[in-house]
């Protein structure tokens, strides 16, 4: 019992990290109808940026986000303008190839710069824990969780209470109609891609403070992130949040009560069951989307 409680707590706390990374992915899909398979590489790039700031300028990991998130936002806007916008037809299919190319470029550049040695980031909160009863909660997980709550809340406010958010939601519902009523969909797309990449920076820092990583870690990440947004429903923010927590909790509980060998299998079986019953994912919309 004690183990299960531990596993649920661990699942919730580490689920927050995956939510951060998956939100960017599902947001970009929702607005632009493209699957950014470069998200994993961008997360790792974000982790290395935080690592650089910490190693060379001794900037705390969380404080460093004030720098890395805007930089990554700008990078996202640039990537969108340079590589995504020129795709005029077959956007969804071609974007997979284009963003995969971006992922390989980033991975190659990171491997050359940092080598493929594993890196883990350290700070006092990585090794110290908060004691509640007989449970120890590592501070880094608590902070990561709070970070994801803050960023999800901020995203919620931007989407629901700003003019830009209204334009974004309109573009999500129907890109062509949004264009017809005068929304600058291309601008919305660029900013959305920027936000998605900035979220990857935050997710990368959170990931790098809890796991050892190297440029190749992007493959593990992107496969898990894609699964999260498929389970949650492609383009659904709520879905990404629920599925992110759900995946980690299911895996962690299975791992302790049964065996780590079954952790992923049980989760994927659940995914298949959900997709059979709801092909659009937990919160996805059924009708096909129109450009």
């Amino acid at each position, binding site marked *: 019992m*004690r*183990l299960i409680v*531990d*596993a649920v707590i*661990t699942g919730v706390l*580490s689920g927050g990290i995956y939510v951060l990374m998956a939100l960017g992915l599902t947001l970009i899909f929702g607005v632009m109808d493209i699957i950014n398979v470069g998200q994993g590489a961008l997360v790792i790039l974000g982790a290395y940026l935080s690592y650089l700031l910490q190693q060379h300028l001794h900037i705390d990991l969380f404080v460093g986000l004030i720098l890395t998130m805007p930089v990554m936002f700008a990078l996202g806007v640039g990537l969108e303008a340079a590589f995504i916008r020129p795709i005029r037809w077959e956007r969804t299919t071609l974007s997979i190839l284009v963003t995969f190319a971006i992922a390989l470029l980033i991975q190659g550049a990171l*491997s050359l710069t940092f*080598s*493929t*040695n*594993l*890196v*883990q980031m*350290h700070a006092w909160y*990585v*090794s*110290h*824990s908060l004691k509640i009863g007989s449970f*120890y909660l*590592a501070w880094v997980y608590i902070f990561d969780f709070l970070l994801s709550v803050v960023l999800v809340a901020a995203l919620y406010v931007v989407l629901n209470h700003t003019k830009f958010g209204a334009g974004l939601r309109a573009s999500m519902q129907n890109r062509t109609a949004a264009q017809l009523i005068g929304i600058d969909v291309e601008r919305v797309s660029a900013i959305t891609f920027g936000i998605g990449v900035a979220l990857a920076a935050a997710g990368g820092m959170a990931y790098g403070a*809890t*796991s*050892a990583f*190297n440029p*190749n870690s992007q493959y*593990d990440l992107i496969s*898990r992130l894609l699964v999260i947004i498929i389970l949650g429903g492609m383009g659904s923010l709520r879905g990404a949040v629920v599925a992110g927590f759900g995946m*980690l909790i299911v*895996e*962690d*509980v299975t*791992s*302790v009560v049964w*065996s*780590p*060998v079954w*952790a*992923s299998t049980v989760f994927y079986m659940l995914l298949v069951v959900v997709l059979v019953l709801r092909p659009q994912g937990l919160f996805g919309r059924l009708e096909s989307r129109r450009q």
Partner: protein
Amino acid sequence: MHRRIVAFVAAAVLLVGAGLAAAQGPIKIGISLSLSGDFSADGQGFQNGYELWADQVNASGGLLGRQVKLDIVNDNSSPDQVQTNYQKLITVDKVPLVLGPFSTLLTKPASVVANRYGYAMVEGAGGAPSVFNRGLKNVFDVALPVINDLDSFTQYILSLPPGQRPSTVAYATNDDPFTQPQIERSRKLFEAAGLKTVSYQTYPSETTDFNPIADKIIQSKADIVVAGTFMPDIVAFVQRFRQQHYNPQALIATAGPDLGSQFTKAVGGAQVAEGILVPNTWYPGADNPGNAAFVKAYLAKFGGAAADINGDAAEGYAAGQVLQQAVEKVGSLDNAKIIAELHSGDTFQSILGPVTFNSVGENTAAKAYLFQWQQGQYLPVYPLAAAVAPFEYPKPAWH
């Protein structure tokens, strides 16, 4: 007609000349290494070792009087890609000799391809039982057979007086063919001696979230922990154990802590690594012939400190040394003759120590050392003949 004959003779002379020149060109040695993917840290170590060996051969007159040139291709740590690579090296690049890739997982498929073309595969990192039990006659591992890696540790623990001896053990292992047999063997030895198993977990090598596994070990409150890991998993375990204030009396990992400063940096500094154990077949200070020169050449070429030299580099270098001696003894690049020589029972010299192969290609003369991190240094502590510092037991509490 006369002119034609002259032209023909001239062409023939040219062709023979070109053929002779090719024979005198460098000897290409084909190698597939994991320069990216899960094993990239180890793959890089092997590349350094192989390159140093080639430098040393070329500096001292070459192999059979010819220079050696390495043809290294990347397999991305993939057992499929490694087969393609050796296939290409042997049939397209037509290399006359090959050396092994990194890890048991990749050596198994690689040696099958080499066997198909009658090539000897001398290697330094495919040492698990599953490499040797397939009836192949062409695979030769210069390192200690992996199954015996943890023996120095079990011997030490079982040599402790009853009052100090731990009574419970937790095991967790990656399902990799390199790690699992070692853990299984140490469990058998410990259980036979009356040490109770309080937790035994096997996890898939794709696992990225190690916390639930670590939590189960912590809950078992085992006296000692035997971990069948590579670098990412042992780093995650150390971090979790620290966060949860779990202090086993001994913590040994099959691999990871042997990667020098890469390991200490990843766990958060040398003081965190204090007391962590790892088995290995080599260390910079070993008094095997040629070892001091190897360490010197390594530092000159790649920089850093002796303590940071990856054991993989030594294993790669040693594989090269053994292949070189076998080729020189038979005096040709005929792989059938080389394989016969390697099986002859002759003893070869390497920086890992003496090498003698049994009928399946295991090195029966290999040495096993147990290493411990002590005050930022990676030191052999057992067996006593090789120990440069006393074994720190029990392990001090986390820093």
